[in-house]
């Protein structure tokens, strides 16, 4: 045992030693002699209030980065920098700029570093950032409930109808659920990639989406199938609710963040759009419950699991948005959705095998197509 342990030590020691020699002697420095350091700066969050503009910035540079001056709309402007010191790799700082911004109009903030390199950030539509008052928390809780819980619970009202459909009818609904989930999977990954593009390159955020998705998928598959079980009925409904809940967490983040940066000019329309879009999720969660006799507390619980994360997401998006947290949320959400796609698919397969059908049926294909079509159609509203 001890011997095996020391065998792992040797290669580690060798690589550490080589790295140490390289870092201390810096044999390749002549390649970059006289060349200014490559600088990278990302604006993670911008808020606007009566005091002006407030930016949270993160350096992606290897060498310390010094913020020298700030321009707003092509004019140098006074500002305070906290902490007032060069930024190390991946370190953040806050810029407070007492600029008299104009509501409803765009503003461009340009950060000039000591080397004269410039980094631009556009505030698309200037609007006061929501404050952290109880009233604003309540408003955004309403937003989250409207986007998450309300449509899911409404979709569950289709349950009595689902119980009356034929076996093929239920095949259709289950396949529709897969269509819906496939749409959400693609949507979640795309959102994750978009968020990754806004995160500092040094964080490898794009990679993090895939890693979080893969890790979550494997973990949930393992949990769901422990002891040789195959999730069906209530368990399957729970996993679908969980996957959708994680997706709605990310959706809430995006909606909240767009409120925070004033991009949500037509907020009310957007929320109605998301509401219609998410009704199908309630149908999907109820479908595996058709063979059971669920009570309303179960439905309430599932609606909470699937819908409440949207409230948390909206709050986080409005009050503390940072792109790399959104990246993680979307990655985890994508993994959870993939797990339920696999499990619902397996469930459909078992039903088909029991009925002597092939794995693909006409009603199944129609349901899958209908799921995608409904999601795409309602996505046009948002």
């Amino acid at each position, binding site marked *: 045992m001890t011997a095996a342990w020391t065998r792992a030590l040797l290669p580690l020691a060798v690589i550490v030693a080589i790295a140490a020699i390289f870092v201390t002697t810096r044999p390749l420095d002549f390649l970059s002699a006289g060349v200014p350091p490559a600088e990278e700066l990302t604006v993670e969050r911008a808020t606007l*209030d009566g005091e002006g503009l407030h930016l949270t910035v993160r350096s992606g540079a290897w060498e310390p980065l010094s913020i020298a*001056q700030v321009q707003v709309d092509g004019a*140098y402007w006074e500002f305070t920098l906290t902490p007032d010191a060069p930024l190390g790799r991946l370190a953040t700082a806050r810029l407070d700029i007492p*600029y*008299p911004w104009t*509501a409803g109009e765009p503003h461009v903030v340009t950060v000039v570093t000591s080397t*004269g*390199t410039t980094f631009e950030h556009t505030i698309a539509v200037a609007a006061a950032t*929501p404050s952290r008052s109880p009233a*604003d928390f309540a408003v955004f809780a309403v937003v989250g409930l409207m986007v998450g819980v309300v449509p899911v619970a409404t979709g569950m009202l289709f349950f009595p109808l689902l119980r009356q459909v034929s076996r093929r009818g239920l095949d259709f609904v289950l396949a529709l659920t897969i269509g819906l989930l496939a749409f959400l999977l693609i949507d979640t990954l795309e959102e994750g990639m978009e968020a990754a593009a806004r995160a500092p390159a040094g964080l490898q955020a794009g990679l993090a989406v895939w890693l979080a998705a893969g890790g979550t998928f494997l973990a949930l598959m393992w949990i769901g199938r422990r002891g040789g079980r195959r999730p069906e009925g209530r368990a399957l409904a729970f996993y679908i609710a969980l996957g959708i809940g994680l997706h709605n967490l990310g959706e809430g983040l995006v909606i909240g963040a767009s409120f925070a940066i004033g991009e949500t000019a037509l907020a009310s329309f957007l929320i109605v759009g998301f509401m219609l879009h998410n009704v199908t999720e309630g149908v999907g969660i109820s479908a595996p419950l058709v063979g059971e006799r669920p009570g309303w507390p179960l439905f309430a619980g599932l609606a909470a699991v699937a819908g409440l994360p949207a409230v948390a997401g909206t709050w986080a998006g409005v009050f503390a948005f940072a792109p790399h947290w959104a990246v993680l949320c979307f990655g985890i959400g994508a993994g959870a959705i993939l797990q339920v796609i696999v499990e619902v698919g397996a469930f459909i397969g078992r039903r088909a095998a029991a009925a002597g059908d092939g794995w693909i049926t006409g009603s199944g294909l129609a349901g899958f197509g209908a799921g995608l079509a409904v999601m795409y159609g309602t996505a046009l509203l948002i």
Partner: protein
Amino acid sequence: MGLIERLLSRRRFLGAGLAVSGGAGALLLARSEAAAQAGHGHDAPAAPAAPHPHSGGNRTKGAVDAARNGFDPHSMLTDWDTGKVSELPDGRRLREFEIVAIDREIEIAPGIFFPAWTYNGRVPGPALRATEGDVVRIRFFNGGAHPHTLHFHGIHSARMDGIPGAGEAFPGEEFIYEFTAQPFGCHLYHCHSFPLRRHLHKGLYGAFVIDPDPERHPEHREAARSRLLGTPENAAWQELVMVMNGFDTNFDEENEVYAVNSIAFAYHDKPIHIARERPVRIYLVNLTEFDPINSFHLHANFFDYFDHGTTLTPTLKTVDTVMQCQAQRGILEFTFKDHEPGSYMFHAHQTEFAELGWMSRFEVA
């Protein structure tokens, strides 16, 4: 009710109308309306806490270290380089100058460093001053990493033009330029090696003033004497040399910093002191790259302008704004004699340039 009151009350009425709504959905609506109204609502950013006086917030933070730069924009206004003066066997006056091209980093706005190419370690280079008819001899040594020249705007022979093939000094080499100072006026010199734009915007330029010889201009003897450095008439004037320039710090062919004599907001943060009773003469040279024109606007006053400085009567009388294309220059004359003491702005009237650093003040006392 006056016009202002009526307009104000109308706006209040509209604001009240927006708030009239009810029910749960109105909560959201009210929130977004509040955001839309933020420009004149309680969140209005109209008056952020006490901006710096005179700047309204438009300024750079901190101060440029003049000692580290090795040049101070305030002393640059008046530190003429008149050369080493001697008499030639034929009786003519000889002025000898020494200029060295040096690559060095300069601080052009607080905390912003620019990898400049300089004459004598400063941007703009030394303000050379001679008198009409002097023999000017400049020993130019190239201590930089690229070929450079001194190309004077003046009258001289092809051999002394300071272009590739005629007076270009390679790194470590020197060249001696010699010509007669003419015509009198407000001129400039710059490097004419190629690529031209790079050699200019990196900082290789300076002012070159030739004073008129009063003996040659009997019809305007008084005006000529007031221009001639060293005369009592000239000493009555407050003379300032200002080179309008800019710096493209991220090399995207647009300037991030504009200034007079290189340092953004230098004469705004610390105004130029002017004695009210003495007239002011400015030798203004435009060496801004990338932008075709620059301008000079004086607040609360008007000036006479002598384009290129090659005349002793104004080419523009009683103006408060003048524009110059690249390499254009001229002389401004004005007085604050009848003004009350105070702070008088002058700046480019391209507001873009002004807000990026070409903003200045005279403190008149």
